[in-house]
């Protein structure tokens, strides 16, 4: 019960902050571009979407999302939530209130994840709208009379979420460590760029780099589609298990780092 109260308190703190708007705008960014392309370039796009329109639409959307925007969003949102305390000099009040360190740490981390889940849900909704609304204007689009493979879409969502867990735990730990915003964001961005290069080169250890995991999830899903029909695929790939491992390790590290800090607030 007191953990729920701590989380409510954390959510209230995000009211009117950039963290909330970042989740909205981050989720809307790619669908908005798609929407404009579908409206302004309808002739070409209608031709392109003749076959499997929803698969193409969502495939393109998630590809753009997972490669850069999603990890970047995780880096930013993980930094923004602890920054609410640093910026307002409020850690001391938080630690002087009757909440255990576990309640403080995990309610904040849960808030980060609620934001991430909100952003992912909104992304799906905006992607749907980005296809449906142009279709209402240009009847040539096939979206309205094609079926969406909901099962695949949900699977894609869950696997992408799993693939970003590792990054979230590392970035949250860094963001609690650093007083400044620029520290964790700079480190995160450097690691993200490094992992993009590593993915580009198909480095054999790329599945061990958490910042590459969202892209690897998309690649593995693409590979599944190319494989022979009827082949069994495990729900989680190796890199996704790695992501879960990083998540557990860095969440615990972050918690104990905060728990045993000598000077709080």
């Amino acid at each position: 019960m007191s953990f729920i109260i701590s989380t409510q308190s954390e959510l209230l703190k995000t009211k009117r902050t950039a963290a909330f708007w970042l989740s909205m705008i981050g989720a809307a960014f790619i669908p908005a571009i798609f929407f404009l392309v579908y409206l302004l370039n309808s002739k070409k796009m209608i031709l392109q979407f003749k076959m499997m329109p929803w698969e193409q639409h969502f495939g393109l959307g998630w590809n753009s999302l997972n490669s850069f925007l999603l990890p970047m969003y995780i880096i930013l949102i993980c930094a923004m939530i602890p920054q609410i305390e640093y910026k307002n000099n409020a850690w001391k009040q938080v630690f002087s209130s009757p909440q255990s360190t576990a309640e403080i740490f995990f309610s904040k981390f849960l808030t980060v994840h609620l934001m991430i889940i909100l952003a992912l849900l909104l992304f799906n909704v905006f992607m749907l709208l980005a296809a449906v609304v142009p279709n209402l204007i240009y009847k040539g689009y096939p979206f309205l009379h094609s079926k969406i493979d909901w099962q695949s879409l949900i699977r894609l969502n869950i696997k992408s979420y799993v693939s970003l867990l590792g990054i979230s735990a590392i970035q949250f730990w860094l963001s609690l460590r650093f007083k400044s915003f620029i520290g964790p964001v700079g480190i995160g961005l450097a690691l993200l760029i490094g992992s993009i290069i590593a993915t580009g080169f198909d480095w054999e250890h790329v599945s061990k780099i958490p910042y590459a995991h969202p892209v690897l999830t998309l690649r593995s899903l693409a590979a599944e589609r190319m494989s022979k029909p009827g082949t069994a695929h495990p729900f989680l790939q190796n890199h996704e298990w790695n992501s879960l491992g990083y998540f557990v390790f860095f969440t615990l590290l972050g918690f104990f780092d905060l728990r045993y800090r000598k000077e709080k607030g």
Partner: protein
Amino acid sequence: MSTFTIETQSLNYSFSKEQKTLQDVNLKVEEGSIYGFLGPNGAGKTTTLRLLLGLLTKQEGTIEIFGKEISQHRLAILKNVGSLIEQPSLYSHLTAKENLEVYRKIYGAGKDRISTVLKLVDLENTGKKKAKQFSLGMKQRLSIAIALLHAPRLLILDEPTNGLDPNGIIETRELIKKLNKEHGVTIIVSSHILAEIERMASHVGIIHKGKLLFQGTLPELQHLKNKQSFLQIDTSNNDAAYQLLVQNFAAEKGAGLLKVPVNTKEEAAAINRTLVQNGIDVHLLQPQQNDLEQLFIDITSNN
């Protein structure tokens, strides 16, 4: 069980190996008192208060609040403690009400407490104004409102009047007195200004360079002050006067004058009579009182 709301024993703390920030601090704060925690900047006031709240991990000694050891009963103790440490900790993007709401449920306070404490600190009409638009005085008052949300038994206030204009200082002081008198809240309030403490505290602790130099009631501090009253005397023959007064009155020579400690008016009269009866003309007989300000400076500079 101790009878004190706060009791520390042999509290030692150091941030680095070379320098001790606190040395053997034995704080005793009686229930129902306003304890003025006085010391120059950097004396160890904030360190002590942070230790009381568990914001710093205790290194040596014991801290008991409400008769319970802080390291074992921290959360239970904090449920009955309100605090304000240094600058206000407000969420600048939230309104006064929202700032209180952030902490209301954590302390298990009822919804009505929000309007009660806002009224108490005279901030009930700030409406949709965000905390960042508040003046420093308003921010400080809102911070006190947060500290009062759960009607705590103990308030820990670190320099609550720092940076306030004279009006804000008076308002804060009156609020502290009112809380103590009408709500029976025990308050420990730190300051580096003696006059400030004199005007509201019932008890005083003076800390300097990490050591507690004085601890007692305000009258006890004033008594100490009286002990330090003396007469400045100038005569036609200071050497002879010194000889006369050194034995019975513990006179001292200094800067062409004599200094004689006195406690009563009668003593001053007796000194004068002694001098006149021995044929010494008295040119100057001036009572000098160490005011508390001077005493504070003396206490903190002697060590």
